[in-house]
C-alpha cells in the first residue's frame, strides 16, 4: 500500500535523511464475523427451505346423471367393487353380487386388482370404488393410487349403498 508522507511528523523543521515511514498495515481482514454470519444464514435457509414439492393427483369425476338410461352399464364379468371400511379395512367383490364380499387390507388389494386385471378382458374391466363413512381421505387417495399403479383405465367412485354398508359393518364386527 502506498503511504503518504505528510512531513508533519517533525516539528523541528529539518528533515533527517531517513524519513520515518508509517508502519505497513497488514492487508488481511479478520473474516471470522463474516463467516459466522454466513453459517447463520445457511442454517436459516436450510430450515426454511421446502424440499419435495407437493405433487398433484388428477381426479376427473363424471357429471352427475339423473336419468338411469344415460348411465354406463357395467358388465358383470368385468365389474370389481372395492369397499373402504374404517380402520384401513378394505373389502372387495367381483361381479355385481355384494354377498360375495371378501375382506383384505391395503397390501392385499393390489394383488387382487392385478389378478382381476389379468383375468378380465380390458374392455370390460371396471373398478368401482365405494368409500364408506369411516374411510379416511388417505384411504381414498391410496385406492386411487392403486388404480394408477395397476394402470386401470376405467374406474369410478360411487357412494356406498346401505345394503353394502351393512355388510361391511357386519364383516368388520365378525372379524373383531
Amino acid at each position, binding site marked *: 500500500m502506498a503511504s503518504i508522507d505528510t512531513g508533519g511528523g517533525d516539528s523541528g523543521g529539518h528533515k533527517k535523511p531517513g524519513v520515518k515511514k508509517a508502519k505497513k498495515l497488514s492487508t488481511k481482514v479478520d473474516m471470522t464475523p463474516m463467516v459466522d454470519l454466513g453459517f447463520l444464514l445457511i442454517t436459516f435457509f436450510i430450515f426454511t*427451505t421446502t424440499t*419435495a414439492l407437493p405433487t398433484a393427483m388428477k381426479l376427473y369425476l363424471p357429471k352427475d346423471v339423473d336419468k338411469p338410461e344415460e348411465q354406463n352399464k357395467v358388465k358383470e364379468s368385468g365389474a370389481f367393487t372395492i369397499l373402504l371400511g374404517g380402520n384401513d379395512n378394505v373389502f372387495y367383490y367381483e361381479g355385481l353380487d355384494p354377498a360375495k364380499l371378501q375382506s383384505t387390507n391395503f397390501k392385499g388389494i393390489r394383488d387382487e386388482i392385478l389378478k382381476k386385471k389379468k383375468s378380465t378382458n380390458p374392455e370390460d374391466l371396471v373398478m368401482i370404488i365405494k368409500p364408506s*363413512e369411516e374411510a379416511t381421505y388417505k384411504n381414498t387417495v391410496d385406492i386411487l393410487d392403486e388404480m394408477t399403479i395397476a394402470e386401470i383405465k376405467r374406474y369410478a367412485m360411487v357412494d356406498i349403498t346401505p345394503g353394502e354398508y351393512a355388510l361391511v359393518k357386519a364383516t368388520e364386527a365378525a372379524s373383531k
Partner: protein
Amino acid sequence: MTPMVDLAFLILAFFMLATKFKPEEAADVKIPSSVSADAVPDKDVFTVSVDKEGRAFVSMDNPEFRQVLIENLNKTRNLGLGPNEIKSFINIPSVGVPFNQLKSLLSLTSDQQKALKQPGIPVNDSLGGELHFWVRDALVAYSGRKLNLCIKADNNTKYPAYKNVLAAFKTNDQNKFLLVTAPEDAPAGTPLFVTRQKKSGAK
C-alpha cells in the same frame, strides 16, 4: 479455512436460490402420498384445505382475483363488507369461517386472525353448503380462464367431509380436480413401475 468458507458460501447461495417459502396456512394438514409425478401448478390455484376435524378453508393465490372474488361475494351474499375488510381479505392467507362471521374475522388485525381458531366453512350438506358459493364466485372471478382447483385434505379426514367438498365443486359443474399429495415412488414390479422404467430407458 478459506476453502471451507468458500464452500459454505456456495451452499448459502444454493439455498438462497432454491428456497421457496412455505405459504402460511390456517389449517394444519398432513397430506397423504401418491405415485403421481405431476407438480402442483404454482399460479391460478384455488385450494380447498380440509383438516382432520373436517374444517374447510379456502385460499386463492392471485390477489387481483381475490379482490374480484370478495367483491362478488359481498354483493351476492350481502356480507356488508367495507373497503377495509375487503383489503383485509386480500392479505389474509386463507379463510375458514361461515359467511355470517366473515365480517368480524376480516375486521381483526392479521395477528388476531392468526390467533383465532377458525371454525371452517360449512360444507355439511350434499350441495356443498357455503363452499358452493365460494367456488362459484371464484369461477366467476376467473370468468372462463383456467383455474386449477386443488383439494388438500388431511390423512385422517373422514370421507363424508371430503365428499361434500367434491359436491361443492360438482354443483358448479366442475369435474376436474387436483388432489395435493406428497410424492412417492411406484412400487417395484407393478405395471406402473414397468411403464416408467421403459419410459426412462427410452429417453
